[in-house]
């Protein structure tokens, strides 16, 4: 169930009004000044470049053939001047073309990133990170490649036109003979590019598959060595190496077919010029200088013609890429501020009650809205301000969903959720999210310092506040023992923490924001059981006088909460204190019994904890 179209070379919609072309046009319109300047510079380059062969022809005819040294000086000087113009403007042309293309790339990537940041959770649930990455990277690259070509293509086109006119003005028949083969260069170049591209992508794909086998055999080296499975891995790699070889050879075959032909075609023109033009020169209807100029012009045309052919194929790919980029930009964020969204009340009526009351009334919700059985159906639950509640129930009963509806990661289908009497959908989103702190089940930390990770909600937070949050989460002690303490870089290029350590940092991150409502979604599952009781003490501190929702399996953690809500099949089936439920509910006892097994541990965490970290980081 991919939400996005797979990358293809062909745009799905064709025509000038397809989304791909529209994005391309919008880009050109936004940057028309820079692109126009690029075109102007390109045309000046064309003028310089095109005049050189003509000037050389004049020098030969009027100077050398005419045995006039003054003419030699004159035309040589003009060649020099034309060269100066062409040289200066070729550099400028390249500079401007790339500037506009990179600018377009940067701007669209920025738009994409900002848009992705605002897209709702359900969109991200449907869409793999890699797919969005490839849109902001590979697809934009294709797009950029084409934008570079816009000013260059226009000046190339004018070059071809100008040369054609010059040649026709010198000698019509000779010009037609010389140019006859050149349109084929264009056609062939286009076809070459189209034929080669799938194989280039194929090589990339096969290389990626080969890399996967290598990565796996390194990551799973303990399995490979433990079972002596080296031969299995070798045969897998051999297959991939063969695939890369086959695909590369296919690409080579395409090259071997087209490159020599592309080389041959201009030679056809040159031969015709020499044969027909030579005899015309013998007959005296054309000068030697013109003959040389014809030769030089043909050589000059080869590059632009090939490029024009490739540009057609590039444009197709760029439009297809732009369409995929557009697809992301066109997705509407579904969770947004309502018109007239309001701030959270800063005091309660009637006065005297604390802040942070959360109330669920008749809540219905399913991840595929409208289809499939809802996850929550008719859920009622009130969590008085400053109290804590543990959500308990079998896997899939909707505990995590309850937690995710409060900060509006998703909107309810029916019913309502209120905080301090205000429907969460009527609150300003930024304010709501600041008021609700959540510790996710899958801990995600950023590649940054520990300090920056804890101060995520408030980067300007003073160090004392960061340290206080870390202490509350039971993270301070291990942080100060790290090589650079709070300034230790973590993540891909930095230090790797164990799963339990990561969870404690995530708790500290949520605590720092000093939220009105705190949600702990299985926040201690990776914490080593022997360490968990330390965190439990700390959590008790964090939860004091704060509305807290705890999702946990371990009875000792559940017991931290003032009350317990037992969930099953999308609704609350029982509610009371831990002791009350233990006493009266068979269901509750059954759920706990499953969790009770193995809730004890020996020694301290092993090396496995570190291995787990890396997996968590990748998720």
């Amino acid at each position, binding site marked *: 169930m991919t939400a996005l179209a797979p990358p293809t070379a062909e745009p799905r919609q064709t025509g000038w009004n397809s989304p791909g072309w529209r994005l391309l046009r919008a880009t050109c319109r936004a940057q028309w000044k820079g692109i126009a300047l690029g075109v102007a510079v390109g045309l000046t380059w064309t003028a310089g470049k095109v005049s050189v062969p003509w000037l050389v022809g004049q020098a030969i005819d009027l100077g050398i053939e005419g045995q006039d040294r003054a003419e030699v000086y004159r035309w040589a000087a003009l060649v020099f001047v034309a060269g100066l113009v062409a040289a200066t403007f070729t550099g400028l042309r390249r500079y401007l073309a790339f*500037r506009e293309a990179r600018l377009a790339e940067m701007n669209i990537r920025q738009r994409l990133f900002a848009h992705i940041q605002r897209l709702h959770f359900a969109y991200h649930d449907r869409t793999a990170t890699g797919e969005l990455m490839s849109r902001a990277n590979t697809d934009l690259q294709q797009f950029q490649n084409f934008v570079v070509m816009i000013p260059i293509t226009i000046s190339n086109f004018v070059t071809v036109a100008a040369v054609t006119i010059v040649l026709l003005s010198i000698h019509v028949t000779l010009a037609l003979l010389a140019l006859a083969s050149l349109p084929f260069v264009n056609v062939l170049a286009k076809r070459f590019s189209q034929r080669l591209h799938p194989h280039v992508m194929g090589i990339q794909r096969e290389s990626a598959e080969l890399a996967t086998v290598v990565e796996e*055999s390194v990551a799973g080296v303990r399995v490979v060595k433990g079972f002596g499975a080296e031969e299995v891995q070798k045969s897998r790699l051999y297959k991939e190496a063969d695939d890369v070889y086959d695909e590369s050879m296919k690409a*080579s075959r395409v090259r071997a077919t087209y490159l020599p032909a592309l080389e041959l075609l201009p030679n056809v023109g040159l031969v015709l010029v020499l044969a027909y033009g030579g005899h015309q020169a013998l007959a005296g209807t054309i000068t030697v200088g013109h003959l040389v100029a014809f030769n030089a012009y043909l050589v000059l045309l080869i590059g632009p013609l090939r490029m024009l052919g490739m540009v057609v194929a590039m444009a197709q790919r760029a439009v297809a890429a732009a369409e995929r980029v557009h697809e992301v930009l066109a997705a509407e964020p579904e969770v947004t501020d309502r018109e007239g969204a309001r701030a959270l009340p800063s005091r309660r009526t009637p006065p005297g009650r604390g802040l942070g009351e959360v109330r669920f009334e008749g809540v219905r919700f399913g991840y595929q809205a409208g289809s499939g059985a809802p996850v929550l159906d008719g859920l009622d639950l009130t969590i008085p301000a400053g109290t804590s509640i543990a959500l308990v129930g079998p896997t899939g009963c909707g505990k995590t969903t309850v937690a995710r509806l409060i900060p509006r990661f998703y909107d309810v289908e029916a019913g309502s959720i209120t905080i301090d009497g205000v429907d969460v959908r009527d609150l300003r989103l930024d304010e709501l999210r600041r008021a609700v702190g959540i510790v996710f089940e899958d801990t995600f930390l950023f590649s940054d310092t520990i300090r920056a990770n804890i101060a995520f909600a408030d980067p300007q937070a003073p160090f004392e506040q960061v340290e206080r949050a870390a202490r509350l989460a039971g993270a301070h002690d291990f942080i100060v023992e790290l090589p650079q303490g709070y300034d230790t870089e973590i993540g891909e290029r930095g230090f790797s923490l164990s799963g339990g350590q990561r969870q404690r940092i995530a708790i500290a991150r949520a605590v720092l924001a000093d939220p009105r409502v705190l949600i702990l979604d299985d926040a201690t599952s990776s914490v080593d059981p022997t360490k968990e009781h330390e965190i439990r003490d700390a959590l008790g501190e964090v939860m004091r006088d704060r509305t807290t929702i705890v999702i946990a399996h371990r009875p000792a953690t559940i017991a931290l909460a003032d009350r317990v809500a037992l969930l099953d099949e999308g609704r609350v089936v029982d509610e009371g204190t831990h002791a009350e439920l233990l006493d009266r509910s068979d269901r509750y006892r059954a759920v706990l019994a499953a969790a009770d097994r193995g809730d004890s541990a020996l020694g301290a*965490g092993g090396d496995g904890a570190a291995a787990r970290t890396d997996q968590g980081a990748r998720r």
Partner: protein
Amino acid sequence: MMRGGGGGGHAVSEEDKLDAEQAKWVIRRAAAWLRPYRRQVVASMVLIVTWTFTILAGPYLVRYGIDQGIVPGDAGALNLAVGAYVAVAVISYVVYRAQVMAVARVGEGFLRDLRRRVFDHLQSLSLGFYDKERSGVIVSRMTSDVDSLQELVQMGLLMFVSAALLIVISAAVLFAVSWQLFLVCLVVLPFVVLASIKFQRDSSRAYLTVRDRIGQTLTNLQEGISGVRVIQAFGREDVEVGRFARRNRVLYDAHMDSVKIAAWYLPVIEMAGIGTTAAVILAGGIMATGDGGVTVGDVAFFVLTLSNLFEPLQQLSQLFNTLQSAGAALAKLFGLLDTRPDIREKPGAVELPDDGRVVVDGVSFAYGDGPRVLSGVSLTIEPGEKIALVGPTGAGKSTLAKLIARFYDPVEGSITVGGVDLRDATLRSLRRRIVVVPQEGYLFAGSILENIRIARAEATDAEVEQALRAIGVHERFASLPEGLHTESRERGSRFSAGERQLVSLARAALVDPTVLILDEATSSLDPGTEAVVEHAMERLSRGRTVIVIAHRLTTAERADRIAVVTGGRLAELGTHDELVARGGHYAALHASWAGSLT
């Protein structure tokens, strides 16, 4: 992927550059590798040289046609030139085609060989190597290093050889046609060479910067996407967008720096070409209008051939980077191939018997030159006995388990299984008799069936199913929509940690070993799966010698005996009750556990 606009090709950082001595070594070894391809290499070279000559023949024939045909009015000479031109064009076409295929066959064949041999070697290396090297570095040998060679093979090598040839031959021919005009051309050469050298250096540096910043931008992008839930949860969208804007801008600046380098280099080359044309016309004109022995044809030939002198020069300066990085990559690959595996099979090694008596005798061990991790550990485990290794992190229990599986060899002392020293056993029998189930179940891409079969490649489907039944989890996997053919990596069917663990146990069951080493997971699974995993482990353990690295007290309690390892020594050994009664380390651990229960 996001190549800099400057087009510097690949580039090498300073520390990776080879000195003359290393370069010689790399070339010698590469030559030895190419020996099987000797004939094709020679054939390719002949084709490349022929092709280069055909390229030069065109302008030469034009000159001949003008000087011998048109100017003296000799139609025969003109027709000869035309005929020869047609022949040359046809030859060029044929040779070019043959040459592209020949180079591809040699190059791609070489790369395939290289990939296979490097991977074979990686497979032969022991765990010690994988512990020392970072996994990213190992993977990059097979990916980015081989890729930079691939780039050389697919584009570079051909261009490099023909560019160099073109320069040399053009220079020689131009010199032969008119040494005076040739000297005129040489005037700009120093400028072009200096500019090319400077360009090569600058663009290489700029490319490294661009590559680095692309990496940073992609990391930022990736985190912004995969961390989007956290970002939204904390209302940090604007801050992250701002942060990304700065990264994006920095990348743009790097791209532009790289473009600027090309933007000044290109005019120099273009000017050199056209400037030389002007100079040739000037000098040629003066000589042709005077007595100087230069013909119109000569001047025309020079004007048409000059591009063969300057364009290849430009190509060479760009290819230099590709060549350098390929050299650096080869050096690293050869270095890897020179690494020797620590664990090798002795000549005349014997089969390990089906006897689960494990004797650890005075074993000491250290990783490389590191401190002793184990010293003087002796322990005898009877066939069918279950022993739990207990102790704090880093005490050496995992190391002891690894030694029993012969992932490493002890520095002192010996380990025997069924009376045979592990160092005297065949590696194959070792892996059949002793199996380690690691803490984390690792799944390879492929179906569940294939994942289990990795333990014993020749096992039939029925045997795999039998293994799953033996640990009581066949139903759990068979009931998936695609049963045992369910792919491990496909979206929507990601397996949980518990399920991965079950696959791991099924692998062990498929091998049916005499000695089983279990590394218990530290973190808890969800309660339902946890029970299934424990049950499967229990069934797998029946009738085997089991060594379990225990993190949970319940596991230790269930073992026949408990060995407490602290500080690399065997501190205590006995049954649960004995050790609790003794009041030592284990008793203390037990007490702290009991105290932590609420």
